């Protein structure tokens, strides 16, 4: 079985075909001395600056790792888990038994009675009792899983 972590074998036929098609780089046509001279000329000023103010090697903490691995992979997952936990905690506040939302606006009495009548009329008897809070707490769970 091929080791998936081992470097793949080179394909001489494909390489040869690519070379024939693309041609070899024209090494013989390059003025190497001229190119080297142009590079050296362009490097004079930056090198002079470095002589005046040599730069230090970056500290390991500043350096960007070649690849993220090990415990660093866990950080994004942990962050997502924290966000999820906060969101869940916020949701739990609104479940029955949780503190009432103090920002809720109370309906005028006449409208509250009207809403209650409409809801009660449109729902099965047992369900209306659940919503009104008159039913026992575990009845809601039974209704959710049993019906």
């Amino acid at each position: 079985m091929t080791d998936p972590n081992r470097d793949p074998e080179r394909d001489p036929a494909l390489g040869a075909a690519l070379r024939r098609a693309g041609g070899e780089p024209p090494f013989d046509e390059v003025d190497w001395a001229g190119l080297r001279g142009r590079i050296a000329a362009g490097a004079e000023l930056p090198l002079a600056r470095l002589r005046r103010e040599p730069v230090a090697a970056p500290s390991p903490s500043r350096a960007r790792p070649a690849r993220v691995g090990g415990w660093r992979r866990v950080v994004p997952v942990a962050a997502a888990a924290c966000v999820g936990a906060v969101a869940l905690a916020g949701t739990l506040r609104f479940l029955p038994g949780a503190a009432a939302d103090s920002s809720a606006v109370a309906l005028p009495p006449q409208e509250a009675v009207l809403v209650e009548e409409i809801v009660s009329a449109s729902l099965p008897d047992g369900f209306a009792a659940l919503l009104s809070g008159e039913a026992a707490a575990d009845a809601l769970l039974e209704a959710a899983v049993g019906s």
Partner: protein
Amino acid sequence: MELLPPPAPVDDDEDAALVERVRRGDAAAFDTLVGRYMRRAFGVAFRLLGQREDAEDLVQESFLAVLQRIDTFQPGRPFAPWFFRILVNRGLNARKARALRATDEIPETAESPWVSPAREAERGELRDHVGRALDALPERQRAVVQLFELEGFSGPEIAEILEISDGTVRWHLHEARKTLRRLLAPFDRRGSA
């Protein structure tokens, strides 16, 4: 034209010592690094850009970029992948810029005076075909297959140059080879490949 001898085998420890001297502005050390890598750099640049003049410019810009970024080079890591990352990124950007300006055609290479017109026409057809096939590959796949098959970089070196994982390099290589072999098959059967 002066011809350079083939470069000496890469020695990471020697490179590390040279880079440390370059940090202090040592021109001789910088010139040694240039001499060590310029031929291979030109080969990679030419395969990226397809034209000698553009490749020479890219090589020059990349070596000068080494000086601009020398403070980011991490001691203890090999110099070559870091340098070729600079060169390949610049080359890929140049290709994209050129593609935006005009149709990106693969230029003709120098014709050999000793090849018959028929053979040259056949070769030209193959060259155009493979050139189009290479151009049709996604940028990463093209870079991976060229760096691996033509420039002799290893998988881990390519991963460091392109800042992708080893597994991703192998996947790109597999996909690129699959596509190219399929497109080259008719030419193999004709015996012109």
